């Protein structure tokens, strides 16, 4: 660990705000991307499923 204490780790000298906001922004952007990807996958599968079942019944 490059920091003496946990408080140090969070403040990062004077740069805590910069570093943490960067990490926060980037990780949440990545998270949104992942959720979007999985959501899209789910949606398309559901749609196709519905369509195939409808075709089968019709």
């Amino acid at each position, binding site marked *: 660990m*490059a920091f003496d204490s946990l408080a140090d780790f969070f403040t990062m000298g004077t740069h805590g705000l*910069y570093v943490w906001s960067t990490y926060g922004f980037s990780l949440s952007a*990545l998270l949104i991307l992942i959720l979007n990807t999985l959501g*899209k996958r789910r949606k398309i599968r559901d749609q196709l499923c519905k369509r195939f079942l409808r075709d089968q019944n019709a």
Partner: protein
Amino acid sequence: MSWAWFHKLGSPRWFFLWTKSWALPLFCLGMVCLLLGLVWGLAFAPTDYQQGNSYRIIYIHVPAALLAQSCYLSLGIAGFVFLVWRMKMAPIFINAVAPIGAVMALMALVSGAIWGKPTWGTWWVWDARLTSVLVLFLLYMGIIAIQNTLEDIVLADKAAALISVLGLINLPIIKYSVEWWNTLHQAATFTLTEKPAMPVEMWMPLLISVIGLYLVVAGLALWRMQSYILEREHRASWVKQEVVGDGL
């Protein structure tokens, strides 16, 4: 060498079945590497004697910047392949990767901008590197807009491929902007010819998070492509088997 693989790659069905089980492992491995790299960089790498702790932004900034460019490069290649050989997979690839690239470019921009404040004293300067990354972001947005706005798939595919290819010009500008114009921005850390000037404890986590992000993006891209393949090939009987088989 036989070209069979090339033609096979062009077949959505073959691609789907071949890569079906790859996405998850790639993604998970990538996540592990990325988190390892980031935690290492955040908590354990030594403090920079010049910039203090703000340099830790590098562990996000550089992977995102590299990925933003790599994604675009691959888009350009896919666009070219589509325009020349009309390979069916190419537009699927473009559709899948453009949003990922856009997020990467945005991450590079935002992390760079935040980093700029403590080091250069300003969020933004209009130098060639930063501007060309902004243009890269706009190009991604253009491609996404084309896909969302043009309802005719044939037209949208061609348009997206065209823009992807034409936009390639931007990449050398990003790459060499720091050498051609004098800017505030740093030159490359990793080159093939020289050892990095940073100490190992600093560049090692960087390398790991770069690799991690590459893997994560690969996993995401495969997932997205698989979804688009199903959507576009819904007429084919194998899709029906695939979806109804494990969807219910």
